[in-house]
């Protein structure tokens, strides 16, 4: 059903929402308790975003909502009605970002170049978080990048190389 301001929607009712996901407009029916992460993974088969802790502690579920990085595990999908969501699957397609030769986003290229992952589980979140952090524009030094990326845990310990990759892209953008 469609939502009407101020009117309660009974539990067990699916609610119609509109989301733009990786550039594609979608009309969806969601239960009110479905998190954005569960919607992406379980209903839309976008399994790049990971359910690491499901409590906002690990950052593996990080996605961009209207260009802003958030933990998708702590967001209810119904509350994001009207938003544009970008997941790791959509990074290569981000407009005007100067995708590289194989179509990847520059931050993806840099992660490969700098060996910024080992098992790769946290990487989708690290990538989305990196882009969100660069959009924010507050981190400039290595120390500031480390602090700004503290919401993304990497249990393989690739932190040094992750910072290298981010710095590389930031310097590239500054030079552009």
């Amino acid at each position: 059903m469609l939502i009407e301001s101020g009117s309660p929607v009974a539990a067990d009712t699916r609610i119609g929402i509109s989301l733009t996901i990786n550039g594609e407009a979608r009309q969806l029916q969601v239960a009110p308790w479905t998190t954005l992460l569960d919607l992406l993974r379980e209903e839309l088969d976008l399994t790049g975003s990971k359910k690491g802790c499901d409590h906002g502690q690990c950052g593996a579920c990080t996605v961009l909502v209207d260009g802003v990085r958030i933990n998708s595990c702590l967001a209810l999908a119904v509350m994001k009605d009207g938003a544009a969501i970008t997941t790791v699957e959509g990074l290569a397609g981000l407009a005007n970002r100067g995708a590289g030769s194989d179509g990847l986003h520059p931050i993806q290229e840099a992660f490969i170049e700098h060996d910024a992952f080992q098992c790769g589980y946290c990487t989708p979140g690290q990538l989305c978080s990196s882009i969100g952090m660069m959009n924010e524009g507050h981190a400039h030094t290595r120390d500031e990048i480390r602090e700004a990326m503290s919401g993304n845990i990497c249990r393989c310990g690739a932190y040094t190389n992750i910072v290298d990759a981010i710095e590389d892209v930031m310097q590239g953008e500054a030079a552009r």
Partner: protein
Amino acid sequence: MNRFEYVRAGTVAEAVQAFASGAESRFIAGGTNLVDLMKYNVERPDRLVDITRLPLDSIEEHEGGLRIGALVTNATAAYDERVQARYPVLSSAILAGATGQLRNAATMGGNLNQRTRCYYFYDEATPCNKRQPGSGCAAIGGVNRIHAILGASEHCIATHPSDMCVALAALQATIRLAGPEGERQLAIADYHRLPGDAPQQDTNLKPGEIVLSVDLPAEDFSRHYTYLKLRDRLSYAFALVSVAAILELDADVIRTARFALGGVAHKPWRDAEAEALLQGRAPTREVFEEAADHVVRHAQPQSQNAFKIELARRAIVRGLTQAAAGTPQPLSDKRIA
């Protein structure tokens, strides 16, 4: 997560009405704390009132100070140029908490109303007077190194986890509310409460009240301030002890001194007597130690957190020293010096 009704409110009146007509309603905005607690079954609302579309998301000039809407995100507030220029202790405190992702979602109102991170509060299998009144407190005599040393009761030793609220306490912010009985204001000092025999109540909000804004007074503490946060790891951890300190100095004499502690009590902790001790004195280590000793004079340790008393004492001295010197602790500089 339990099943619940969902209401999307378009106006404050609609939100207040929707809340009141549910049996066990909760307002939801950023959701970073509430959704988490719902996943643990600690919160089981039968109705969520989505307030994210209310017009409470701006920062405006107000009586010489700033009025920060309840839905302004923590990130937006912390990076706002006016907040950074005029209330840097608030900006610094907000940025000391959580992570980039969480601060992008979490709101001013939600930060005020976040619940404790006491392990037992989160664990349904253990007694907790805050979660289930009358069931007991497993933290007393349990794993309690993060717990309160000031203002606790035999019923609850939980601490308030916010960094932001510690700065608001030092700044003497006013919280503007709306509820079924209309609008009112609460001083930040009266917003949160000590546990006493009703630890299930974190705040003095009346049922169904919603935060409209956080109002900052027209005062300038942009020169002598610090937010010093001591924790088990260097980022993304709650404070063991934190200090928000703001001073007004006049030719090496302290004209105004305010400081609040985080991580030590059920609410941001201020001690008017200790602040008065600083008034009219020179900003020296001896004077700061006197004030710090005064704050911890009634501190009561639990079985595992006696270290916090000395930690709090030293944090106060260091915080006041940083504030007096005009050398606030930058967040990306992790050196303890």
